[in-house]
């Protein structure tokens, strides 16, 4: 009996140890799972880009009748060298209506300087968004947020929300809720003055 036990143990030890595919698959699955969980966690905990951080780049395709420098599409990086005011709004948003005239007036005031206003319609129905733009005679470039990609990047918590980006592409002020004239003038003039 003892000999038998010894022989078996020796056999086990002398067996060539090949690749344990089961273990490889197991560890592969565990690592994949951890990577996915980590990635999900990072995405969930992503916070709104704040003042001092680089403004995330994005592409926009403007609503019919709107353009920037004669083009129906644009990219935020194309606007490098200008102060950019990105305003998230929606036609169903009551507070957006409170600031609509103010934003248009301010745009007209600064459009000859190095300032670009960019309206982004969040989760809006296109005919309603266009009706809203007509209602307030809005002339600055406006685009839908297709796939909510832009609002996801900027992690907006609602509308209206406005990001002021300086000429170097850095966010310098974030306004949650409706804007007022004092804030708009103050921030834009500061950003225009900063970069000469």
């Amino acid at each position, binding site marked *: 009996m003892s000999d038998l036990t010894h022989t078996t143990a020796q056999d086990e030890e002398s067996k060539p140890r090949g690749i344990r595919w089961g273990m490889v698959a197991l560890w592969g*699955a565990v690592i994949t799972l951890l990577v996915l969980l980590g990635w999900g966690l990072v995405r969930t905990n992503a916070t709104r880009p704040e003042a001092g951080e680089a403004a995330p780049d994005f592409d926009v395709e403007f609503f019919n009748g709107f353009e920037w420098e004669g083009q129906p599409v644009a990219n935020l990086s194309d606007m490098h060298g200008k102060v950019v005011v990105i305003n998230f709004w929606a036609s169903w948003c009551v507070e957006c209506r409170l600031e609509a005239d103010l934003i248009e007036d301010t745009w007209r005031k600064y459009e000859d300087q190095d300032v670009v206003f960019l309206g982004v319609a969040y989760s809006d*129905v296109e005919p309603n968004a266009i009706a809203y733009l007509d209602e307030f005679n809005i002339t600055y470039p406006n685009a839908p947020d297709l796939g909510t990609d832009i609002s996801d990047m900027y992690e907006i918590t609602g509308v209206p929300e406005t990001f002021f980006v300086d000429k170097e592409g850095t966010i310098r002020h974030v306004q949650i809720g409706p804007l007022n004239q004092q804030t708009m003038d103050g921030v834009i003039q500061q950003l225009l003055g900063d970069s000469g």
Partner: protein
Amino acid sequence: MRRIIRPSLFALFVLGLIAFAQPLWAQDSSVSDDEVNEVARDIYCPVCESTPLDVCATQACADWRELIRTKLGEGNSKDEIFEYFARQYGDGVLANPPRRGVSLIILWILPVVLILVGLLLFSRMMRNLRTVPEAAVVTDSAVESTKVQNTPATPPEPTAQEEYLARIEEELGKK
């Protein structure tokens, strides 16, 4: 004067009726609320978290329900409407996101991988449960036999059953 006012009033009345009726035509009366809600219940409100469109009271949801009504009126199928909403507002607004990209990995591939890993772990655990007692028995008996070999040859102590049998034989012998 009356001859002028009466036709004018009538014309105003007709114009008013047309103006009032226009939004009703725009609503597409051929599509019922039930048909709209059938699609709307699988789409989430963009404002309120995890609230289906058919039970949400916000203006945003009302606008989206009207959009669904328009799309159904244009002859779009349920899947075409879901595809449109996913393209316009992102996959996140759908109760059943399409099987592509991240959702394909998280909702479809990951559960299968987890089940396979679970089965693999379970089978390993069961194999260990089977082999450990056998090894223990073999080891115990090996230890016993080693003990027997190492100890001097002494007769083993009779068990209770052996004693009992011996006593029976003794009793039978007496008879």
